[in-house]
């Protein structure tokens, strides 16, 4: 495996055609097909209308969530190329068919300073809990959902835990893998060499 992104590897043509057709009919901003996964990019002002329109042919409401795209991050590895990336939230909603394998992710970008988007909850009952979760985890506001009370978190909890700026306390206290684990992570140079040598050995 190379590090270079090879996004067209699994994208077969019927899926491309499906995505292109769907995006065109919905008047979406664009579409991305990678690894057998369809993403339809939607303008945030057209969010509710587009989803409801798509919901007619993809009736199954699977899930709704968000991604926090941040240049700097307190947890994990962060993004590949911070300079090129625009900081934003992405709200993702997945709809699928209940007859075929057809499905699509609908994605809208929200600016960090105004993370507000229309609510699907009044139209799609299943969206209510997912929106509450996205609200408490990312701080995204869903316009029209008047029941955005915490779902998982205690009532007095402060902060939005899934934000990249929110530290993972257990990691701060004790870095992985912890003192008791004497085996180094495979990322160390020695280990990688050893692994490469071993791989050759196996290949023979």
């Amino acid at each position: 495996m190379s590090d270079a992104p090879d996004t067209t590897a699994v994208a077969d043509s019927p899926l491309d055609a499906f995505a292109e057709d769907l995006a065109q009919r919905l008047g979406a901003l664009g579409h991305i097909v990678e690894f057998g996964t369809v993403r339809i990019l939607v303008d945030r002002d057209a969010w509710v209308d587009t989803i409801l329109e798509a919901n007619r042919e993809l009736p199954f409401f699977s899930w709704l969530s968000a991604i926090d795209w941040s240049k700097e991050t307190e947890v994990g590895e962060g993004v590949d190329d911070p300079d090129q990336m625009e900081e934003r939230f992405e709200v993702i909603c997945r709809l699928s068919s209940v007859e075929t394998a057809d499905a699509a992710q609908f994605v809208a970008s929200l600016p960090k300073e105004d993370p507000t988007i229309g609510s699907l909850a009044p139209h799609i009952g299943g969206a209510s809990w997912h929106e509450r979760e996205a609200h408490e985890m990312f701080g995204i506001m869903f316009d029209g959902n008047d029941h955005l009370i915490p779902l998982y978190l205690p009532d007095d909890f402060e902060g939005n835990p899934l934000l990249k700026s929110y530290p993972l306390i257990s990691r701060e206290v004790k870095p992985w893998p912890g003192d008791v684990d004497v085996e180094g992570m495979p990322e160390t140079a020695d280990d990688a060499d050893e692994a490469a040598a071993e791989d050759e050995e196996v290949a023979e």
Partner: protein
Amino acid sequence: MTSPAMIHRSESAVSVELQTPDMTLNIGPQHPSTHGVLRLVAKIDGERVRDVEPVIGYMHRGYEKLSEVRTYAQITALVNRIDWVSGFANEVPFIVGVERLMGVEAPERAQWIRLILSELARISSHLVFMSSYPLELGATTPLMHSLREREYILELIEEVTGGRFHPNFNRVGGVKPAYGGGSTTKKQSMDLPAGFFQRTAEAMDRMDKICDDIDSLVTGNELIKMRTVGVGIIPADKAIEYGLSGPNLRASGVAYDLRKADPYLTYDQVEFDVASASDGDCYDRYVVRLEEIRQSVRIVRQAIDKIPSGPLQTKVPRVLKAPKGQVYSRAENPKGEFGYYIVSEGGKMPYRLKIRSTSFSNLSILPWILQGQLVPDLVAIMGSLDFVLGDVDR
């Protein structure tokens, strides 16, 4: 007080017109029928539930956040703890998704082993339902029978993976090479334990038998039927709107099964019927699950015949890095559609992992379905949805 709109479905209790002011009834978080720690704040009017607010999150472990600081190989150890009743089945969609990202394909034999263990997990999960659900309705005998038989399945899973509930058996590019191995320097390619298929075939015969037993104990039972037939009806359109999947969706007349509609592993090479029913009530949800055990037995028998010999793992680099991209991978778990949305930024760890857990969506219909129901039906309806709180809270 009772408005006409509130009177529907099972209409047998409370016929005396009493003035009953609204009362708030707190059910849980410690309650035998809540399968973990679920709290329901119900506003009731006499014996009728007017409004219900489920309170979840008592078991929230933050797996989505934890996954952001773990490598792909480490995450399988987390995800099998989401729905602990069918731990193995949770690993499959994740590892299939990672393999799709990395462009790795597991060897044929590993795929079949995953399929067999997934079906064993399904049988085991449904047997838990077959024990707990009648118990909640007052029938204690099926519990003993089902849990006894489940032990045979768990023993098979333990024999192969080393764990009864948390197998952590899937690896990127195959399955764990050696049971009880753990050596990082010697790559011994050991196979499944000797006689495993023989014992699995024997266990499948037992499963056929226990299905017949449960059938005779529960299916035609007058008392069970009175508690479940026509109770908690979920129409197909509501099930779809709330994202119900698995047996809960199929009981409502939507015969949608990802193993058929969007085949993964080697499900396209086995024959089985999608169990479904049409009424969408508690009884149908039970019937569908019982039939699914029988179909799983059918699948496992075919798999034992068809499994090819060969390696259990394909060659992958020691340091696993996924290329940049986003992938959604889903599987038909015992409880329904289980999926992972993996966002990779080209590193060793996912940038974001969204876990689409089945019970979360299955449970989200509670406020709708419980409205206007009788308090005694509440337990019957909740039990029929077959949720696990770990799967709800993640």
